[in-house]
């Protein structure tokens, strides 16, 4: 069952002094229940804007096109997250139908309130639970769900370790039993162990009935839990692939995605050459052409996304050539 269906989503920012910034251009994908899709790309590629668009949290100078249909429960009609007005989003969508796991839980939680106060308020607002004892039970159940220790419930956010703060934020995101979980850079700045634990928990809570959209620049986190990977470059999706094929063999097909993987310290540790283009001054053709070794005249036209790939010269080498023996190159060479 499709939980989220994004079609032709485009976001532009009107700027006072310069050309409009084309942060997201013509993005389409589907997300099924029980599935985890990782959206990866360099910083500034438009992936956070995409998340804000899905939550209806774009600033006032944003213009949007396309649709993002969020399936309704049972026989309810689907809601277009892009077209819905703020009142509907605030009252019926955020928290209830889309759970947000934030980038920085410390900033997401109010510093003067305890974790229990946060959870209780969210439980009351989203589930309509009333009565002191019922609320207490429901709050503790919500904490137990993410293995948040009950003894720490009366602490303030700054008294928690990074891991516990992240769990508290996850508990809040799960209270509404939303069918779609949206995690925006949930692991930024965390240790590797904590990254692994955080994403494992997210994956576990996705289960068979929910869908998880994880926006991240952390390829290792994506490789750990994603079913599919979507690579974003200069506001467009350039490749969507099964995670196993993408991170293993035969590997990515888009030259940018290959470059991104090659930049990992466990691989070649070689940056993608050149610089990402300005979103306010994108070329007419393929935005990656200026950095691409395979670019030719064909790349002056925009390649359409077909078969999960938008490239005129995709990588098609046989599997055994995809991973050359990892030469011990000098870092950053």
């Amino acid at each position, binding site marked *: 069952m499709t939980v989220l269906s994004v079609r032709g989503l*485009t976001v*532009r*920012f009107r*700027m006072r002094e310069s050309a409009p*910034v*084309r*942060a997201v*251009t*013509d993005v389409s994908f589907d997300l099924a229940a029980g599935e985890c899709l990782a959206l990866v790309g360099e*910083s*500034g590629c*438009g992936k*956070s*804007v995409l998340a*804000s*668009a899905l939550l*209806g*949290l*774009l*600033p*006032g*100078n*944003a*213009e*949007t*096109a396309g649709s993002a249909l969020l399936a309704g429960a049972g026989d309810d009609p689907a809601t277009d997250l892009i077209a*819905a*007005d*703020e009142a509907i*989003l605030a009252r019926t969508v955020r928290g209830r139908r889309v759970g947000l796991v934030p980038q920085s839980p410390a900033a997401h939680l109010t510093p003067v309130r305890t974790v229990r106060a946060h959870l209780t308020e969210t439980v009351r607002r989203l589930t309509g639970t009333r009565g002191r004892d019922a609320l207490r039970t429901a709050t503790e159940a919500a904490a137990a769900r993410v293995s948040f220790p009950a003894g720490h419930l009366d602490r303030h956010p700054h008294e928690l370790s990074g891991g516990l703060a992240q769990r508290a934020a996850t508990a809040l995101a799960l209270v509404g039993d939303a069918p779609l979980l949206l995690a925006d850079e949930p692991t930024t700045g965390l240790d590797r162990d904590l990254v692994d634990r955080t994403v494992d928990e997210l994956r576990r809570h996705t289960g068979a009935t929910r869908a998880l959209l994880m926006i991240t620049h952390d390829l290792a986190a994506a490789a750990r839990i994603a079913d599919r990977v979507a690579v974003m470059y200069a506001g467009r999706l350039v490749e969507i692939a099964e995670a196993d094929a993408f991170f293993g063999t035969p590997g990515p097909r888009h030259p940018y995605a290959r470059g991104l993987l090659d930049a990992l310290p466990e691989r070649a540790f070689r940056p993608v050459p050149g610089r990402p283009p300005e*979103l306010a001054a994108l070329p007419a053709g393929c935005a990656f052409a200026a950095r691409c070794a395979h670019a030719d005249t064909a790349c002056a036209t925009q390649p359409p996304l077909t078969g999960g790939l938008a490239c005129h010269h995709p990588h098609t080498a046989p599997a055994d050539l995809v991973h050359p023996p990892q030469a011990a190159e000098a870092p950053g060479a």
Partner: protein
Amino acid sequence: MADLALPTAPGRVARTARTWKLRISATLVAGFVLAVLLVPPLVGLDEQAVDLGAKLLPPSLDHPFGTDDVGRDLLLRCVYGLRVSLLVGVVAALVATVLGTAVGAAAGALGGWTDRLVMRCVDAFSSVPHLLLGIFIVALFRPGVWPVVVSVGLTHWVSTARIVRAEILSLRARPYIDAAVSGGASRLRLARRHLIPGVLPQAGLAAVLMIPHAIWHESALSFLGLGLPTHQASLGTLVQSARGTLLAGDWWPTLFPGLFIIVPTLAIAGLAGAWRERLNPRRRSELML
């Protein structure tokens, strides 16, 4: 895609409401300031001119706000009153802000025992209700504009000092201060380049927010007969001298000066609110990358 007309995101609605609030506030403030600056030299009428034949006339075309109990035109009196009150408010707010910023910046930047000593004084100051303290200060002088300015200024620097100190402390903990130290910046350069520019917007906002407050205080002191002398039109003295007429059922000598206290102060507060909105770092960037 280039020519595609995109509809505006829903967030724009809230933004439009804010813009309107800003526009109305700005128009009102501009209108009052212009009136205060232009009416006295242009009209040339004597606002003190007593005309016992025209006393306590209700609002009419000749006297849009009516006249007071000795026949003076209330519209003219209100404009003159606002002129004095605004002057007192602005100067008192400036005094309070300069004092508060200096104290707060010294406490925050020097730290240690200076900070503890200063903050004790601040606590002691704020433990006394400031209207009471203000009354005490004006009572030391003969009624006049300057005692009121001094009184309001000396009682209102405390909150600014707190704000500025907190802001400096939070700025000092930023990694960019570490980077500046490592880059060889002297203490003076650190203060001049990073700390002071960092707190100026907050201090300026505090100053603007204090103008309405200072106007209210001036009015309160004058209403109690402790502020300005009664012959000098200020919003406070106008309301005060209208007390007797209100009991007789004549509403206009109280209502219009009252509105002249409320509307300009709300408009200034509205402008300050819009400014605060702009200072909010989350709103500062229109584009989130």
